């Protein structure tokens, strides 16, 4: 005890000098490993490069056309113009509706399919899974025209349902892949215990597997939200009416006008990007967890 007391007394002032101490540690580290310093500076430059468009967007949305051209002063004129020229509220609502409905379909289909691929045994299972994975390789752009023609025959152009089905159809394969990987990671004993407890396949899925799949479902939802919210092509083709346009389509229309006001466009872009950025920031840990699914098996 007597030996410990002086030791503690000596440590205390050192703790008070912590910031200086930490700086010294970083400096020592840097001198020992200059490569790390180079990597750090490189990453700093890349981050700055990636953040600059956001800064540009925020700063210039807070300027009028003249202030933008002169590069001085701030005002909220552009925001007023944006809300006057574009039904922002309606378009945000449309985007939300299409996103939520598509994600709901994707989650329902991918979780059920993922469970079936991972936990059930049926004929041609491998082939079917291969087909699902294979469909992920087909770029949306290459088949969008036939899809458009077929949907036109079904009178699904300019309807929410049309866009929702396209988003759900293109989002489900990757989501199924993620969900299959997740369910494969669940021990078979869990579903077997559920069977012994008195549950059938549907019961095991809904009452045991699905409640445990919340992190995977969140990953799928976040990934799909960002993708669908930011999409322009499907919205442009399938939601052409001013009343059912999504925010990205509205923004596209705004930028294709004869006179383009950069500050108004920046304000619109900010409105459009913000929900996706917020969703990403809040659910970042699910994304990382989802993207490393199956790594620690």
């Amino acid at each position, binding site marked *: 005890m007597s030996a410990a007391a002086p030791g503690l007394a000596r440590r205390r002032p050192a703790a008070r000098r912590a910031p200086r101490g930490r700086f010294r540690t970083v400096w020592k580290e840097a001198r020992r490993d200059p490569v790390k310093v180079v990597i750090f500076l490189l990453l700093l430059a890349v981050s700055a490069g990636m953040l600059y468009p956001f800064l540009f967007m925020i700063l210039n949305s807070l300027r009028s056309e003249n202030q933008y051209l002169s590069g001085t002063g701030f005002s909220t004129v552009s925001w007023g113009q944006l809300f006057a020229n574009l039904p922002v509220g309606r378009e945000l609502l449309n985007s939300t509706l299409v996103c939520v409905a598509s994600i709901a379909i994707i989650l329902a289909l991918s979780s059920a399919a993922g469970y079936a691929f991972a936990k059930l045994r049926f004929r041609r299972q491998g082939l079917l899974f291969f087909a699902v994975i294979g469909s992920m390789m087909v770029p949306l752009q290459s088949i969008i025209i036939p899809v458009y023609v077929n949907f036109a025959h079904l009178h699904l152009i300019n309807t929410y349902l049309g866009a929702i089905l396209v988003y759900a159809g293109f989002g489900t394969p990757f989501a199924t892949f993620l969900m299959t990987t997740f369910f494969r990671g669940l021990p078979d*004993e869990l579903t077997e*215990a559920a*069977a012994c407890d008195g*549950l059938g396949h549907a019961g095991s899925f809904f009452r045991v597997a699905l409640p445990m799949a919340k992190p995977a479902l969140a990953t799928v939802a976040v990934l799909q939200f960002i993708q669908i919210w930011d999409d322009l092509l499907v919205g442009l083709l399938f939601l052409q009416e001013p009343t059912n346009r999504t925010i990205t389509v509205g923004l596209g229309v705004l930028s294709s006008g004869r006179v383009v006001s950069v500050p108004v466009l920046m304000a619109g872009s900010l409105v459009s990007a913000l929900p996706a950025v917020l969703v990403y920031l809040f659910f970042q840990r699910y994304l990382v967890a989802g993207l490393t699914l199956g790594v620690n098996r």
Partner: protein
Amino acid sequence: MASISIEKVTKIYPNGFEAIHELDLDVADGEFMVLVGPSGCGKTTALRMVAGLEDITGGTLRIGDRIVNDVSSKDRDIAMVFQNYALYPHMTVAENIGFALKLRKIPKAEIKKKVEDAAAILGLTEWLDRKPGQLSGGQRQRVAMGRAIVREPSVFLMDEPLSNLDAKLRVQMRAEVARIQRRLNVATLYVTHDQVEAMTMGDRVAVMRAGLLQQCDKPQVLYDHPVNLFVAGFMGSPAMNLFDATLGEGAATALVGSQKLELPSSLHAIRPALKSYANRPVIIGIRPEDLPVAGDEPAAIDEAVYFEGDVELVEALGSELLVHFTTDAHRVEAEGAKDADSEGLSAGALTKGGEGVARVEPRSQLVVGRRVRFRIDPARFHFFDPASGLSITS
């Protein structure tokens, strides 16, 4: 409550591999039956077939009077405890234990009472609101047991439920599981690869190897009268010492290495079939505890047989000594002995060539490198046919 009847049950996988070949086994109502064998012997497959988690290729499986070959798990009225416990991580301990009752739509108050009773039996009362992730291995194992007992099933099935516990806890839980089974008096099929568990827990033990049932009997009968080399080598730790030997004229002597053992006539009375092996090779087996050092044996042995070896290593376990000795005889390594799990120091891993192991009195005066003389009761010898591996008995 019900019995389990397995009649000529076979399991062949789609790739043609036969995991179980015509297994016949009956577990009486209230009986604790242990299925034991090395990895890949088919014991877990057999258990899973009883649980309804594997299809049965052939034969008949009955639980009680009902044939359940094509009955799904949920309709078999069984409760299973899994090796990794298979607790639902998103539910609390109380929800885990009461889940099956909830599915049966039993009133909430009744579920609560049953869960609390089970928790009291298992010492889980204070953990009922915890999630499985917050429990230790032993507590999780108890929750798994609780989940099984609260259902009051016809049959208990347990798949190596203690194998994930540390040695001390395993010994403790071994007694606890056996006590609970006796208290509930439900037919239990318990799978393990640990022959100590099998010996200590089972009313009867069924030894399996490569999909075939080798022997099924009371633990002491298996130990004292193994039907073949595999069972002899598998049951017991350290494993039985098995040496190549040749019987002499009239089977009155046995040549083990260069040592000629005089076999008394009393031995022939116990094993009359031995005479037909006169002038033929046999495998002679002696349990380590049947090799007392001459002079140390607890009671005088009539017509004792002496056997000698050179002390190579002495392991002091406090209550006894394990003496590793060498002889010039050829040691036969029974297949099962290598796989048998053991809590002792010598599961056969240390034995090689002509080595043997003896379990002797703790105060025996033994010096490494010196010759040791064992005095054996001839009734304790085991003899096996080298060709078939079967025990030479009557």
